């Protein structure tokens, strides 16, 4: 068959000068990641001072819009902005006009009218940050969109690993658990791929998305495979997804027995990470979570400095990912 040409190449009207956003790891380069990690490290040192506030983003406005519950991400974004002296405002879907049925587009336009420099958004639906980016002038940071992306989580995870190992290149990371529903996994696979790490996904068959190997990782249903990894990255078992007789696994009990990360399944010295919130006794044994080899608390601290780095980077110089629309290719 003759070659089929690509349509929709010029689907969009001529784009205005690209605004810089941080929406997907797919949009950034290894250089972007290196720069952000280096910036985060600088901020970590600044936080060791007695007075932790920096004047860098004085007069800037950062709006956090959270359509899903969050502790770590929302608090760290708010604190990150405050540490950099930006003004902040936080909107939650409950108690806002969203309760009255306002569309995301209208909410975004409304908030855009305050001329925010950055809008940080978490939303249960894939593509919500792109929609906000289209209808406002703000830089948009994705704090999690559905099962798609959670790029600042990936960045803080890279930071944590690099601090622990001094390198990312060649590191072997086993990601264990509910990959299917995990935006954390998708961002992390891409981020580790960018930095030359090796990724193995370990999960029950129905929680391994078909075709995910194309992202450049290996997959297995054998929990024994985690033994070979430098880092065991445990995903949260999303109880809310396990309802309605979906039968991804027969029961959480069966899951915990077959895929739970227990002391017997990890080597001494093997680092263990978890994005939180944890279901102790399901995907992770409390003894593993509380062990000195667990980096879970380090991850939370890394969240603050990497999010400071993202805000700083967007509002100062370096080109963080710029694409709001992906280029379409038809093979």
């Amino acid at each position, binding site marked *: *068959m*003759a*070659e*089929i*040409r690509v*349509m*929709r190449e*010029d*689907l*969009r*009207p001529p784009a205005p000068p690209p605004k810089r956003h941080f929406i997907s790891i797919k949009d950034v380069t290894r250089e972007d990641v290196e720069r952000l990690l280096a910036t985060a490290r600088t901020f970590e040192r600044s936080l060791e001072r007695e007075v932790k506030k920096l004047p860098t983003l004085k007069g800037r406005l950062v709006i956090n819009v959270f359509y899903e519950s969050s502790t770590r991400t929302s608090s760290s974004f708010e604190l990150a902005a405050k540490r950099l002296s930006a003004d902040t405002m936080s909107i939650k879907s409950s108690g806002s006009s969203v309760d009255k049925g306002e*569309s*995301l*587009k209208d909410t975004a336009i409304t908030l855009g009218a305050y001329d925010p420099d950055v809008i940080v958004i978490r*939303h249960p*639906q*894939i*593509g*919500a940050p*792109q*929609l906000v980016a289209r209808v406002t002038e703000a830089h948009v940071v994705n704090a999690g*969109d*559905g*099962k*798609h*992306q959670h790029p600042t989580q990936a960045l803080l995870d890279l930071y944590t690993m690099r601090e622990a190992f001094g390198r990312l290149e060649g590191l072997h990371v086993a990601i264990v658990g509910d990959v299917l529903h995990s*935006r954390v996994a*998708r961002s992390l696979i891409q981020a580790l791929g960018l930095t030359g790490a090796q990724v193995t996904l370990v999960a029950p068959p129905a929680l391994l*998305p*078909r*075709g*995910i*190997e*194309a*992202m450049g990782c290996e997959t297995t249903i054998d929990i024994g495979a985690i033994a070979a990894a430098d880092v065991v990255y445990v995903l949260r078992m999303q109880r809310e997804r396990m309802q309605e007789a979906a039968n991804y696994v027969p029961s959480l009990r069966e899951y915990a027995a077959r895929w739970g990360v227990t002391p017997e399944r990890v080597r001494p010295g093997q680092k263990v990470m978890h994005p939180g919130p944890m279901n102790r006794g399901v995907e992770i044994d409390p003894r593993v979570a509380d062990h000195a080899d667990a980096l879970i608390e380090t991850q939370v601290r890394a969240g603050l400095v990497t999010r400071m780095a993202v805000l700083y980077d967007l509002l100062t110089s370096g080109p963080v990912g710029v694409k709001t*629309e*992906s280029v*379409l*290719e*038809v*093979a």
Partner: protein
Amino acid sequence: MLFAGPAAKENLVVRGARVVDPVGGVDAVLDVRVDDGVIAALGTELDTNSHRVLEGEGLVLAPAFVDPHVHLRTPGREDEETIASGTAAAAAGGYCAILAMPNTEPVVDSAATLGALIETARAEAESPVGFLAAITKEQRGTELTEMAELAEAGAAGFSDDGMPVASPGLMRRALQYGAVAGRRIALHCEETTLSREGQMHEGAVSAELGFTGYPSVAESLMVERDLALAAYERQPLHLLHLSAWESVQALRRARADGVSATAEVTPHHLCLTDEAVRSLDPNVKMNPPLRAASDRTALVEALKDGTITAIATDHAPHARHEKEVPFEAAPFGVTGLETAFAALYTQLVEPGIVPLGTLLERMSAGPAQAYGLDEPRIAVGKPANLVLLDLKASYRIAEESFRSRSVNSWLLDQTVKGAVRTTIAAGRVVFSA
């Protein structure tokens, strides 16, 4: 089975166009004279008889198109489309006949609802339109509609499009009773326990983007079931909007075994793959979803070799505000009546993948045969159902150009080649650019 607003038949001569009638094997520069809405003569330098003359020089004159699958959203969602706007869009797309699906609010499942639609069409349809009625009451998949009465009242066929007939037992009864009604049964093949909550084709792209997958097997499993039932009952059926390689294989085998099955494919499944969903543009969200490159290749091959004999737009208008949301929140469906020929000409004919004659046949005679409608032909004695096409015209598809009430087209702002200049349906000019 087709209905349109009142209009006088016309006297016309189309002069000097390249006349292409794939069924009749005609491809020559000819004049075509239409007397009182009927093709009266084909020849060179025909006397115009003081008829209105349409200059066809440099243009292609072909049998007008037939779209066996559109959604006119009437009754219930007249903000998205009406019979007037939908048939005007059809005329602009080169169509002399379209068939509207019954998944409206309320569902077209009674002679009364159908009768009201036919009455509206007779008053306001800009070009001929027929109506399918539902297979089951309220499309709930539990109770057959009164198919014989509906056929008598003017139903062009039967379909629960938008959802499958889930029960194999009821599907069998529908095929059996379809013989009494004497109309084709058209099936939306989807095993919903496999496609549940699916947003796009299940594969590498859905895995990366995080969308819940709608696997090919959700379609092909149902295709296989329905073909098996059709074989067992020795009844014909029509398969709506095939999207998967496995479905094409099943259809090919069944046809070779003598099953009387026809099938249709949409322009978007012939032109795009699931890679397009990376744009997160709700205008590439449809059911069935865009599939992998190998599926698309299989659909194109099936269209060429005649396994699939009909191109159907599955024109599905949606209100602007319902599509201006994140992908997952958007409804399934895209418009297509006004862009089908240009999209397919640009994508398949110009690059030399599909011959022009094949495309014209699959957009006209093929779909007409699937429902037992008269094939549009360019032959003496046939009603004038003609489309004048400018294959050289290159243009951008602009939102303002649509006659449809909705603009959820996957081709917005795309530059295409091939324009409809004039459409003649049932002997009268229904569109001229």
